C-alpha cells in the first residue's frame, strides 16, 4: 500500500535521449513530476515538446535514459520486461487517439483482451466485460464489430477496455483527437464521471485547451522541460 505522504507517481530528473551522437535528440531534459492518487492531470504542449515521451514513460511503454521513475515507491526502470507487462495490465489503462481496437472484432472481445492476458477465464471475463461496456453506455452493443461503431462509440469501447481490469491510473493520449467537438465533450464527461465513481487517477495528453479544462491540474511542456505546473479549481 502506498504511504499517505508519498505520491502515486514520482519522476525525478528523468531524461530521455533518442538516437546517438550527431543525430541524438533530447526529448526530456531532467523532468521532476509528482502525481498524487486521484488527480486528473492534463499534459499540454506543442508536438515535440516531450509530452508524449513523458506519457510513454509513465505508462511503462518506454524507459528513461537517465533519472528515476517511482510508482508507489518502486523503481520501475529496474523491473524486467514481464513485470512491466503485468504493471501495464493491472495498474494502467490506456486510451489512444486512434482508439486501437482490433478490427473485425466485437466490442465485447475487444474489452475482454486485458482480462485474457490477466488470466481471467470464461464466465468471469464475460461478466466483467459486459459491466465495463455498460459503464461506458454501450450495453446492448456487445456483439457489434469495431468497424460498425462510430468514432465516439469506438472510443467508449476503448475506455471500457482500459477500465475492465480495474486499474488505478488511466493514461489517455489525445483521447479526443479524432472526434468532433460534441463527441469530445461526451467522452470527457464520461471520463470525469468514471474518475469520480472509480477513484481513478487520470493523466491525459492534449494540445487542446478546451479539453484540458476538464482536468484540475495543467502541466505544460516545452522543449523537453516543464514550464508550467498549475492546479486549478474545476468548474462545476
Amino acid at each position, binding site marked *: 500500500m502506498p504511504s499517505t505522504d508519498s505520491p502515486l507517481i514520482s519522476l525525478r530528473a528523468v531524461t530521455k535521449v533518442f538516437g546517438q551522437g550527431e543525430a541524438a535528440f533530447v526529448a526530456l531534459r531532467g523532468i521532476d513530476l509528482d502525481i498524487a492518487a486521484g488527480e486528473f492531470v492534463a499534459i499540454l504542449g506543442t508536438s515535440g515538446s516531450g509530452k508524449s515521451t513523458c506519457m510513454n514513460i509513465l505508462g511503462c*511503454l518506454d524507459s528513461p535514459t537517465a533519472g528515476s521513475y517511482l510508482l508507489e515507491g518502486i523503481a520501475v526502470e529496474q523491473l524486467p*520486461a*514481464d513485470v512491466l507487462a503485468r504493471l501495464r495490465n493491472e495498474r494502467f489503462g490506456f486510451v489512444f487517439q486512434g482508439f486501437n481496437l*482490433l478490427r473485425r*472484432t466485437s466490442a465485447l472481445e475487444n474489452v475482454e483482451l486485458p482480462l485474457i492476458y490477466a488470466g481471467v*477465464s470464461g464466465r468471469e471475463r464475460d461478466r466483467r466485460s459486459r459491466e465495463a461496456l455498460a459503464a461506458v453506455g454501450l450495453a446492448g452493443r456487445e456483439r457489434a464489430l469495431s468497424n460498425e461503431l462510430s468514432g465516439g462509440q469506438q472510443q467508449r469501447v476503448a475506455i471500457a477496455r482500459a477500465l475492465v481490469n480495474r486499474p488505478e491510473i488511466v493514461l489517455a493520449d489525445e483521447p479526443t483527437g479524432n472526434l468532433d467537438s460534441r463527441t469530445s465533450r461526451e467522452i470527457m464527461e464520461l471520463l470525469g464521471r468514471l474518475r469520480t465513481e472509480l477513484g481513478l487517477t487520470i493523466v491525459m495528453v492534449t494540445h487542446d485547451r478546451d479539453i484540458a479544462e476538464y482536468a484540475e491540474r495543467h502541466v505544460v511542456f516545452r522543449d523537453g522541460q516543464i514550464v508550467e505546473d498549475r492546479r486549478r479549481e474545476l468548474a462545476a
Partner: protein
Amino acid sequence: MRLDLTAAVALKALARNKMRSLLTTLGVVIGVSAVIMMQAVGQGATARVTGEIAGLGSNMLIVLPGGPNHGGFGGNLRSAPQFTRDDLAAIRREVGAVRTVAGVSSRSIRAVVGEKNRSTNLSGVTPEFFDVRGWQAERGRLLTEDDERMAQKTCAIGQSVSDDLFGGQDPIGAELRLHDLSCRVVGLLERKGVSTFGQDQDDFVLIPHTTFARRIAGDDHHGTLMVSAVSEARTDEAKAQIEALLRQRRRIREGEDDDFNVRDLREIQNILGSVTGVLTTLLASVAAISLVVGGIGIMNIMLVSVTERTREIGVRLAIGARSRDILRQFLVEAIVLASAGGAIGIALGTAGAWALSRALGVPFMFPLQAALVAFAVSVVVGVVFGVFPARKASRLRPIEALRYE
C-alpha cells in the same frame, strides 16, 4: 497466459482473416494431399501386382529360351534353341521336385467367325497347362489328353474373344477359323480381367499343342515351359534340378552360360515390388518437397502478417501481453494453419486417392502410416516456419509497435 486462452486468441485472429488463412494453408493442403494420393495409389498398385503374381502360383517356374545374359525377358528368343517334346518328357520323368510340366507355344493370329474377326493370341498348349495355371472352364470343357494325342481341331477361348466374335451367344460347339485351320470351340474359360499393366488377360485362343505344331508352327517345339513344383518349399530345388538336367541334355560345359533361363515367380514379384516401391518413394519425395514449399508459404504470409499487425501487437503489449504471449500466439497461429492444412490435405488426398484408384482399377488402400507422417510433418512445418515470424513479432518494442503506421 494459459494455453487454451492463447489458442482462443490465435483462432480468433485467424478467423478474422478467413480468406487469407485458407490461402496460407493451401500449400500444405496440396502437399499433404499429394503425399496421401501418391502413397495410396502406389500401395494399391503394388498390392495388385503382387496379388496378380501370387495368383499365378508361388510354386510356379517358367523356363524360357535364351540365357540370363541375353538381355532380359526373352531378348533372344529366335536364336536360342526352343524346348523339344523330349525335354518336356525328361523333366516330367527325371525331376523329383516337379509336380507337372506344361509346354506352351504362342503367336498372334487373326481369329475369324463368320463376318467378324479379331487379332488375338494363339497358344498351343499341352493339357497340363490348365493344371499349372489353375484355369477353369466356365462353360464346356478344357483341352484333354485325347485332344492332344489325336491333334484334334478343338479350341478353348477367353472371354474377350467370345464377347467379340460371338457377341453374347454361346460359343460352345461353334466353328472358329485360324488362318486355314478351322476348329471347334469346346470350352470358354473363366474371366480374369485386365492386369495392372493394362493387358487383357481374357484375349486368347488355346489349341492342343500337337495341332499347333502341325497346322500353325510346322515344328513341334515348345516356346516356353511352365513348371509347377511339388510345393513352394521345393521350388528352389526344382529350379536347380531343371537347370542341371537341361545343361546335361544340351551338353553345356562347366563355365559356359545357359542358353535357357528358369524364372522363379517370386523373383519377378520381388523385382516388380521393388520397381513400384521405387516409384512410390520418388512420388512421395516430390510430394514431400511440395509440403516444404507449403511451409515456406506459411512463413511468408506469417511474416507479412506480423508487419501488417504491428499496431495490433503494440496494443496487445500495452494492455499487458508479455513478449512470450505474443510469441505463443503467432506460433500457435502457424501450427493451427499448418495442421489444419494437414487435416484438410488428408481428407482431400483420401478422396482423390479413392477416385484415382477407381480410375486406374487398382485396389483403394488408405495409407494410414503416410497420413500420420504427413500430419506430423505439417505440425512440424508449422513450428519450424512459424518460429521465425513469431520471434520477430515478440521482439517488437511496445512503443515502436504502437507508433507504427
